[in-house]
């Protein structure tokens, strides 16, 4: 004879335990997003591509996302992922102007389309333009 936990008891522990861990994580501050800053974005990009130089950074209005450009003309997008951040390069046609910002599409299943909030229309058009004069390729 072996010791077994009855399946309903195991399922009950999962049904109570999983929400308990998630709820306690939330109640102890685990849902707070850490806003982005230029230093964090630069560090992330250099981790991905150490040979590049970050030439410009545009923080979103809510600072939970940002755009950056490197010396080879590549545009990058960064997201706040709760207390951590993630960054990816954006394809040339990946930014579409929207009334509240720029919709960023990477055609990557691991990176769903989201909007970088930018209220200023000039900023939107400057980043959405695939080759604005004096910015792309600037060293």
């Amino acid at each position, binding site marked *: 004879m072996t010791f077994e936990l009855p399946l309903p008891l195991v399922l009950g522990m999962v049904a109570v*335990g999983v929400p308990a861990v*998630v709820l306690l994580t939330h109640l*102890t501050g685990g849902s707070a997003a850490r806003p982005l800053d230029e230093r964090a974005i630069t560090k992330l990009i250099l981790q991905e591509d*150490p040979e590049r130089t970050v030439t410009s950074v545009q923080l979103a209005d809510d600072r939970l996302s940002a755009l950056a450009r490197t010396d080879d003309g590549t545009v990058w997008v960064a997201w706040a992922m709760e207390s951590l951040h993630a960054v990816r390069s954006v394809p040339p046609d990946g930014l579409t102007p929207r009334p509240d910002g720029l919709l960023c599409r990477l055609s990557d299943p691991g*990176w769903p389309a989201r909007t970088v909030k930018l209220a200023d229309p000039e900023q939107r058009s400057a980043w959405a333009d695939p080759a604005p004069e004096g910015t792309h390729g600037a060293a």
Partner: protein
Amino acid sequence: MEPPELPDVVMLAVPFFVATMLLELLAARLTGRASYDTRDTAASLAMGVGNLAIGLVFGFVTFAVLMALYEWRLMTWGWSVPAFVAAYFLDDLRYYFYHRIAHTMRWWWWGHVTHHSSQHYNLSTALRQEWTGPWNFDFLMRVPLVVVFGIHPVMLAFLGGINLVYQYWIHTEVIRRFPAPIEWFFNTPSHHRVHHGANPRYLDANYAGTFIIWDRLFGTFVPERDDEPVRYGLVKNLGTHNPLRIGFHELMALARDATMPGLSIVERLRYVFDRPGYSHDGSRQTAPMIKAAYVRSHPDQAGQPGLPE
């Protein structure tokens, strides 16, 4: 001889999983030596629950296949205590090779990437498991143990459960290091932190399940360095906590790559079975390429553990 009744170790460990996660969360908030985010934790636990459910449903299928193959065994292993211990070592060696393949062949990486997709390293990360194991034929790696050694599938299921529970507790930053003899022989939190690292020197290292000796033996061991904290996650981290995207993003990317127009058959097959990061036009980087690039920019570190000459 009929197999003895053996418990389902993973089911027995469920209360332990819940209690230790709560304790680690407490330690994280009090000491700062671990980190928990809500949606990351929820995603990890959703993946864990899904893995458990799929294991319950489809585990019977893979078990039935192994039982059928057991009828063709070349020898019979037996049920003595030494037989259990020896089988654990053999199955752990099997795990080492399965795990190494899961990191170096994209067909197995598309499932295993799930486990590495969190940028956090805590006990909930241990439960962030793939939903697709039965469908990418992971269980085939157990066939030699069943057919050649005659180890009964019931024994393998029991030992596999112990190995899985062993690997659970090493997913923590709360424990730093054990005394040297333990660190030399066993897989520990320190060794496994390296395995979850995206730093160039930590990529493709420390594949062990329970015994780190396999990595030492086969040249894949890399020690954790105090002067280089582990950066957890993937080389290109995900921008989502959606469990469906976590579980299937790499399969979708693989399918898109392998079916893009204009490729030769060999290139398509390489997208499926070559290393993660392979590309027919050289636009992406595999782990060895990343390591080589790192050494080019840090020539003083060439030849250090985890880095090429």
